[in-house]
């Protein structure tokens, strides 16, 4: 009997310990910005899911395109209906790896993330430098990168071609908490 309880205790410890190496957020922030001579377009998403496995350095991010909030409500509707086709491709995802994760501590460090970004059903390999901070109870990732609209086969009609930038700046800030 004591052996069973010993094993039970040991498994419990393992369970907690193994839980500690994953960090998750459900309220991550991602925004994109398009600058053109006609207008600036910005949209924010505050419901981004992101998870980091500290043992492997792997990271997975996903967000709903419909959760991007625009200043103009009509623009938001058109973004979903006509541009990114949210009914067909509801999510954007990123799956990648943080390099040198074992060297990172609680001071701000710049490191590289490489991985695959999927938007509008189109995959694209990207790599970007990020600001990262790792504490016992939080991992913070911050940064921005640029993507070409054309890479994701998002059609822009010629009538609004001057309103939308060819290259979009994407910014993110993710505060991960321990995931049990």
């Amino acid at each position: 009997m004591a052996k069973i309880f010993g094993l039970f205790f040991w498994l419990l410890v393992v369970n907690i310990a193994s839980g500690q190496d994953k960090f998750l957020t459900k309220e991550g922030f991602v925004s994109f910005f398009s600058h053109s001579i006609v207008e600036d377009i910005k949209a924010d998403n505050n419901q981004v899911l992101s998870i980091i496995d500290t043992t492997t350095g792997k990271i997975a991010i996903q967000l709903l395109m419909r959760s991007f909030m625009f200043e103009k409500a009509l623009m938001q509707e058109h973004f979903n209906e006509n541009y990114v086709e949210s009914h067909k491709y509801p999510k954007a995802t990123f799956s990648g790896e943080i390099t040198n994760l074992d060297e990172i501590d609680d001071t701000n460090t710049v490191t590289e993330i490489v991985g695959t970004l999927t938007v509008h059903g189109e995959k694209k390999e990207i790599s970007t430098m990020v600001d990262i901070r790792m504490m016992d109870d939080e991992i913070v990732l911050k940064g921005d990168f640029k993507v070409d609209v054309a890479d994701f086969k998002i059609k822009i009609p010629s009538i609004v071609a001057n309103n939308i930038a060819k290259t979009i700046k994407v910014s993110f800030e993710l505060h991960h908490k321990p995931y049990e």
Partner: protein
Amino acid sequence: MKNYLLLFIFVLMLPFKNLAQDLESILEEEASDTTLTVSGTFNGTRLLNGHSVETRKTGVLEFLISHRFGRINSGFDQLFGLDDSNIRFGFEYALNNRLTLAVGRSSFEKTFDIYGKYRLLQQKSGENPFPFGMTLFGSATAKTIKDYLPENKPTFSERLTYTGQILVARKFGPNVSLQLMPTFIHFNTVPENNDPHDMVALGIGTRIKISQRVSINGEYYYNLNPFESIDVKNSIAFGVDIETGGHIFQLVFTNAVSMIEKGFIAETNGGFFNGDIHFGFNISRAFQVKKAKQN
């Protein structure tokens, strides 16, 4: 002992369940309720002549200019109706995502109209789906044309007509939407004594998208108890919607000349298949006058 064994197996499974999962599947599990409201059932707040279930989002002011020319079969002398033009201006303001209030004025019979639209139910997809959307519409119109003898001057109340509609729509996938419009109209004044003051009609409409920004629309209202003193036809409309950013252009072919409910539903007298067709258009421009709510 058996209980301990079960507990043992259960505990054993816990950590391995976590280990077996990859990061993507954890995210799938953690993703919250994915019920989404279905948007863009119709391109604009108008199907063609009448309203669609759509309302604008909080803080949007929409300006509408609509035209109906004369009858196409009026011949070359009238340049196929283009010499004759009726216009309606309207302003709609969305107080919130559900409620819109609006005013308009038509040159036809110099009629003012005020109305409210309230989005009662929205079609939803995802975890907790809902099959259709429902919007309530209510309007009052005042005819101000001086088409009476001086001694018969009507009171303000006698100029009024009220319309109530229950708009029910469903989007069947990204390209096809269908709408039903049960309608009730009350006339304070009718042409002759034997004409009904209360009228019931049923409308049906559809939108078929043929490209990302262009759709073909159709709309038909069947009047159950029309006026008896005048030869009233059911209103039919076909058209094309072209959407470009904040603008919507609608090209309309209809047998109705009026652009307000009581007019095209109850008082249309042109026969569509006799060629009494009016060409017209609706142009709308939406302005975000108050910043959209971040939620």
